[in-house]
């Protein structure tokens, strides 16, 4: 049992022959469409496919055995300019680094789509990512490949503002029809954290005329 805290980098790398083999198969099937890939031994695997062949690669993946559709979602890689809403409203808002930095298997755009498929026979899962072009935010729908993607794409559409070409019915699922903005984008402020100041900002009032040295007493 590993009881000590150890970062994943320190653990001895294990060779995961199963996933390596699966990745080799996927790369052989999809060809140059796979932009980047990553296998974490004993854990999981990621691939990134090019946006244009998104629908096509899903079909191929389904045909090669990844027939279980787990979920579809998107990730906005731009860090939130609002933080956690724990800023003091009386102070000027602090500058936050909002440079876009993608996660595993890289990426060139702000938004990425993420789909997880599982092979129902071998139970090996694969996370498939694709870039969503900036400004346009449109990709092909995969609802014709996995019927279950229908609702997930609707959710991604209203939450991230990603358009899905060829989706049968992109109505809002959760939000009112006339809702403006895309709540899950990082630059959408979370109002619940804006309307009242964080109670944690308050600090203990210092002694009237007291000096800083006597702090150690508490």
């Amino acid at each position, binding site marked *: 049992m590993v009881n000590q805290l150890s970062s994943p980098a320190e653990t001895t790398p294990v060779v995961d022959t199963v996933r390596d083999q699966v990745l080799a198969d996927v790369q052989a099937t999809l060809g140059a469409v796979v932009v980047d890939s990553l296998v974490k031994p004993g854990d999981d695997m990621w691939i990134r496919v090019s946006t244009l062949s998104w629908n096509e690669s899903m079909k191929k993946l389904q045909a090669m055995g990844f027939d279980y559709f787990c979920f579809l979602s998107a990730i906005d890689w731009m860090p939130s300019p609002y933080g956690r809403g724990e800023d003091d409203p009386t102070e000027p808002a602090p500058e936050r680094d909002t440079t876009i930095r993608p996660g595993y298997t890289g990426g060139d755009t702000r938004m990425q789509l993420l789909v997880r498929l599982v092979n129902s026979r071998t139970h090996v899962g694969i996370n498939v990512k694709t870039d969503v072009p900036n400004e346009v935010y449109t990709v092909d729908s995969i609802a014709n490949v996995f019927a279950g993607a229908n609702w997930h794409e609707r959710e991604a559409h209203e939450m991230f503002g990603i358009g899905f070409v060829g989706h049968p019915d992109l109505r809002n699922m959760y939000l009112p029809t006339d809702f403006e903005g895309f709540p899950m984008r990082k630059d959408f402020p979370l109002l619940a954290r804006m309307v*009242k100041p*964080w*109670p*944690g900002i*308050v*600090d*203990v*009032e*210092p*002694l009237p005329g*007291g000096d800083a040295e*006597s*702090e150690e*007493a*508490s």
Partner: protein
Amino acid sequence: MAQIPGMIKGLAVTFNTMMRTFKNGSNTVQYPREKEAPPIRARGVIALHEDNCTSCMLCSRSCPDWCIYIEAHKELAPPRREGGKPRAVNKLDRFDIDYALCMYCGICVEVCPFDALFWSPEYEYSEPSIADLLHDKSKLGEWMETVPAAPELEVGADKKKK
């Protein structure tokens, strides 16, 4: 028909339950008159032991709902030893928990480094007005007497904790 038994069995189940209720009484209790004691660990209400609080703000900052409001000021207290310098201590001015917001997650009790917050299994403090659910430090202090001792642990538990 071979179909009958399933339905007869169903009738027997309800009839047996009725007889059991006749014999052994019901599984419900007549609430205002009979009360079930909640378990020791039940998270009913948070009690504040004010003397232990150093107003370090940890609970307020770790509250996911932002429902703990603390105000405090520094004060000079008499020295611990004879002839020492007077110490500066934090004196609580306000310690409010808004039970209308509280999710009863227990994070504040857990993070408190000085054992100033406790869970009490007391649960009967509903109010007709939502504003009355804001308990101030005197009310939170009153809950202290309902705080039970922590339960014994199960066999095999690591006793050295704490």
